[in-house]
C-alpha cells in the first residue's frame, strides 16, 4: 500500500490508506468520545471557572507558540546559514530543553529564585512564568524546523539574494522561506503545552489542563474531564485552523522539489559569532540554569550510587517504550507523508485531524485505553496490556510531530524520479527500498530521535499504562521525587541528562555520516 501511495497512481487507494492510518491514530481517543458522549452529564460543562481557564489556556498556547517562534526562527536561520565554531554539537544540544519534563524546569527556576544571593532574579510566576518556561522548552521545535527548511534552500537562491542585497536580504529571504514550517512547528509546541499541568500548577496559573486534572483526580468524573477535553481540543483547532491553512499553502510553495546543490554555511564576520552566542545563551537559560537550580540543593548530599542502580534498572524499559513509540510514530508518519505527498488538501486534512488529537490531554486517552483493555478478552492483552500498548499509545500521541517532519522531507522527493522509475520498469518495492527510503533516511532518524525524546517525557501515559514490573526512568524520577531526599532526585536528574547528552552526542555523528554519503 505504501507503494501504491508512493506512486500516486491510485488516488482511491491513497485515501483508503489515509483513513486507515488516521483511524488507528485516533483510536486511543475513541473510548473518550464514546464514553463521554454516551453519558448523561452529571455536572455542567461550561462553568465560570472552566470558561475562564479555557481563556487562560488559549493565552498560554498562543504565548508559548509566539515565544518559541521568536527565539527559534532566528536561531534556526543563523544555525542553517552561517559557519561557526562547534556548530554541530551546539545545534544538536538545542534539543535538550525538550527532554526535561516541564515541572523539573519550574522547580529548578523557583529554587533559584528563592536563593538569597539571587534576590535580583525575578520569580517566574503566573502566565509569564509558564510562557517563559514552556516557550523555552518548546523552542527546539521551531528551531529545528527552521534549520531543516534553511537546509533545503538551494545555493543559487541564497547566492543570488546575497549578491543583490547583502546579508540582511539573505536573512529576510530565508526567514520568509522558512517561516511557514517554523510557524507550524511553533503551533505544535503551543498545542503540546496546552495539556501540560506541571508548569501551570507550580506557577499558580489556572489553565484548562489543571481544570481537567481536577475533574479527573479530585472529582473522579471521567465523563466531565472527557467533555472538557473535547471542547478544549475543538476550540484550539478552531483557532489554529486559519494559520494552518495559510501556513500549509505557503509550505507547499516554499519547498522546491529539486535540490541540486544545497547552500553551504557561510562564514560571516559578525553573524558567525552571533549564532553560537545565541545558541549558547538559549542552552544556558533553557537548560543549564534550571538544572543548576534543581541540583543546587543536592550538591551537599549526592546519591549517585543509589540513582545509578535505578537508572540501570529502568534503562531497558525506557528504551523499549520510547524506541517502540518512535518506530511506530515514524512508520505511520512516513505512510501518511507519502500518501499525501501529491495533495495539499490531503495534507491539510490530515494535519487538522492529528492536531486535534495532539491537543487532547494524554491522561484521558490512557485511561480510555485502560478501560477498553479491561473489557477486552485476555487474549488481546499482548496488544492492550503490554509494553507494546505503552509504545503504541505514546507513538500515536507523537505521530503529529513525526508527520510534520516526514511531510517536510517527502516534499523533496521529485515526481520525475518516479516517472523515470516507471519508464525503466523499476518495481515499486525496489524503488522504495533503493531510492525513497534512503532519501528519507536522515529525516527518519531525526524523527525517531525526536519522538523518543518526547515520549520519554510523557510521564502520564507511561505511568497509567506501564505493565506492573516495568518502569521507565522518567516515571521513576517522577515517583521518587514526591518525597525522596533532594539529593536522590537531583542525582537521578543528572544521570538522566547525562544519558540524553550521550545519546545526542552519538546522534551528532549521524550528519557527518550522511554528508559523507552524499558527498
Amino acid at each position, binding site marked *: 500500500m505504501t507503494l501504491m501511495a508512493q506512486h500516486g497512481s491510485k488516488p482511491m487507494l491513497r485515501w483508503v490508506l489515509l483513513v486507515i492510518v488516521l483511524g488507528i491514530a485516533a483510536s486511543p481517543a475513541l473510548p473518550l468520545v464514546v464514553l463521554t458522549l454516551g453519558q448523561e452529564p452529571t455536572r455542567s460543562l461550561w462553568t465560570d471557572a472552566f470558561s475562564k481557564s479555557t481563556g487562560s489556556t488559549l493565552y498560554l498556547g498562543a504565548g508559548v507558540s509566539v515565544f518559541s517562534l521568536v527565539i527559534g526562527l532566528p536561531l534556526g536561520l543563523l544555525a542553517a546559514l552561517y559557519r561557526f565554531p562547534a556548530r554541530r554539537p551546539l545545534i544538536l544540544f538545542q534539543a535538550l530543553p525538550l527532554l526535561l519534563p516541564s515541572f523539573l524546569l519550574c522547580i529548578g527556576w523557583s529554587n533559584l529564585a528563592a536563593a538569597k544571593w539571587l534576590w535580583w532574579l525575578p520569580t517566574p510566576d503566573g502566565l509569564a512564568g509558564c510562557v517563559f518556561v514552556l516557550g523555552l522548552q518548546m523552542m527546539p521545535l521551531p528551531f529545528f524546523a527552521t534549520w531543516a527548511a534553511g537546509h533545503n534552500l538551494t545555493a543559487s537562491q541564497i547566492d543570488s539574494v546575497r549578491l543583490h542585497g547583502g546579508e540582511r536580504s539573505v536573512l529576510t529571504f530565508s526567514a520568509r522561506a522558512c517561516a511557514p514550517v517554523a510557524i507550524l512547528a511553533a503551533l505544535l509546541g503551543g498545542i503540546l503545552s496546552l495539556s501540560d499541568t506541571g508548569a501551570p500548577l507550580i506557577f499558580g496559573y489556572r489553565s484548562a489542563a489543571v481544570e481537567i486534572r481536577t475533574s479527573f483526580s479530585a472529582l473522579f468524573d471521567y465523563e466531565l474531564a472527557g467533555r472538557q477535553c473535547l471542547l478544549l481540543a475543538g476550540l484550539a483547532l478552531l483557532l489554529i485552523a486559519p494559520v494552518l491553512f495559510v501556513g500549509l499553502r505557503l509550505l507547499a510553495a516554499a519547498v522546491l522539489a529539486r535540490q541540486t546543490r544545497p547552500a553551504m554555511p557561510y562564514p560571516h564576520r559578525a553573524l558567525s559569532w552571533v549564532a553560537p552566542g545565541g545558541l549558547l545563551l538559549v542552552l544556558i537559560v533553557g537548560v543549564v540554569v534550571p538544572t543548576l537550580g534543581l541540583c543546587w540543593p543536592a550538591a551537599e548530599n549526592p546519591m549517585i550510587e543509589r540513582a545509578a542502580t535505578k537508572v540501570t534498572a529502568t534503562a531497558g524499559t525506557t528504551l523499549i517504550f520510547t524506541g517502540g513509540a518512535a518506530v511506530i510514530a515514524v512508520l505511520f508518519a512516513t505512510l501518511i507523508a507519502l500518501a499525501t505527498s501529491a495533495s495539499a488538501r490531503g495534507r491539510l486534512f490530515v494535519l487538522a485531524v492529528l492536531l486535534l488529537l495532539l491537543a487532547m490531554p494524554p491522561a484521558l486517552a490512557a485511561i480510555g485505553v485502560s478501560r477498553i483493555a479491561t473489557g477486552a478478552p485476555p487474549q488481546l492483552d499482548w496488544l492492550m496490556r503490554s509494553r507494546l500498548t505503552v509504545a503504541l499509545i505514546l507513538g500515536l500521541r507523537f505521530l503529529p510531530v513525526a508527520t510534520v517532519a516526514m511531510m517536510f522531507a517527502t516534499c523533496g522527493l*521529485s515526481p*520525475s524520479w518516479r516517472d523515470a*522509475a516507471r*519508464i*525503466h520498469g*523499476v518495481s515499486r518495492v*525496489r524503488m522504495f527500498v533503493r*531510492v525513497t527510503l534512503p532519501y528519507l533516511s536522515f529525516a527518519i532518524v531525526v524523527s525517531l530521535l525526536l519522538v523518543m525524546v518526547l515520549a520519554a517525557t510523557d510521564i502520564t501515559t507511561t505511568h497509567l499504562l506501564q505493565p506492573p514490573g516495568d518502569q521507565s526512568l522518567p516515571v521513576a524520577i517522577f515517583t521518587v521525587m514526591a518525597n525522596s531526599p533532594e539529593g536522590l532526585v537531583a542525582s537521578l536528574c543528572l544521570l538522566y541528562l547525562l544519558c540524553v547528552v550521550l545519546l545526542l552526542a552519538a546522534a551528532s555523528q549521524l550528519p557527518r555520516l550522511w554528508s559523507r*554519503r552524499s558527498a
Partner: protein
Amino acid sequence: MTALVRSRGLICRLGNQLVLNGTDFDVADHESIALLGSSGSGKSTLLRVIAGLETARQGELAIDGKVASHDGRILIPPHRRGIAMMFQDLALWPNLTVAENVRLGLSGLRLSRDQSQARIEHALDLCDISELADRRPGTLSGGQQQRLALARALAMRPKLLMLDEPLGGLDLITKQAVLQQIAELKAELGFAVILVTHDPVEVYSLCNSLAVLENGRIVEQAALDEIVANPQSALAKAFVRAMQCGE
C-alpha cells in the same frame, strides 16, 4: 519506413485544462524529430502520453504497430514500450552512485547479473563516464549529469529516446559535445529521437524533421529542409528566422 509511434486523436485534460486536443503525431523508425511548441502547448504531456506516464482520455496510441493505449486504458506499461526518456530535471536518483543509477534503471529488464554489469560498463563507456562510476549525482558537473542521464537511458537499448529539454543549463561547448555524442550513438545504435526544445542549435545538430504543436494539436510536421524552405506556422517562421541568424 514503418511508423514507430503513431497517435490518433489524443485528447488529454489536466485539471480543467484541455492539454491535448485531438493530437495526431507520427514518428518513423530511426527518425529524429524535433517537437516545437510554445509553453503550455502540450509538448511534455504528449511525451508523457507516449511514454505511458499519462493516459489520453480519448484516442489511440500505437508503438511499433501495437496498440499501447486506447481511450484511457494502458495496454502496454511504460517499461515495455522500448522507450527511454531524458527528463528536464534529469531525474537522477540522488542517493545512488552513477553505476547504481544505471543498474537500477535496468531492473525492469530482468537481466542476469553479468548481463547487466556488461550493459552498465558499456553504457558508461559510450557516454565517457566510466571513471565516475562510484560518484553520486550531486558531485557531478552539469555535463556529467547529462551524460549519466543519457547512459541510464541508453543502457535500456531503447527504440526511441525522448529528450524533454534536458540540455537547458549547459554551456555551449558542453552542450555541443553532448549533442554530438547523442548523434553518434544514434547513428551507431539506430534509435529514433524525439527532442523537445526551443534551441535551433539542438535541432540542427540532431534532427532531420520537425513538428509544431499548438494548443494541443500538431499543426505542421515535415522534414527539416522542407520547413526551413517553407515554414507555415508562426512558430516555425520564428524558428527559421532564429536559425538563419545563428548561421
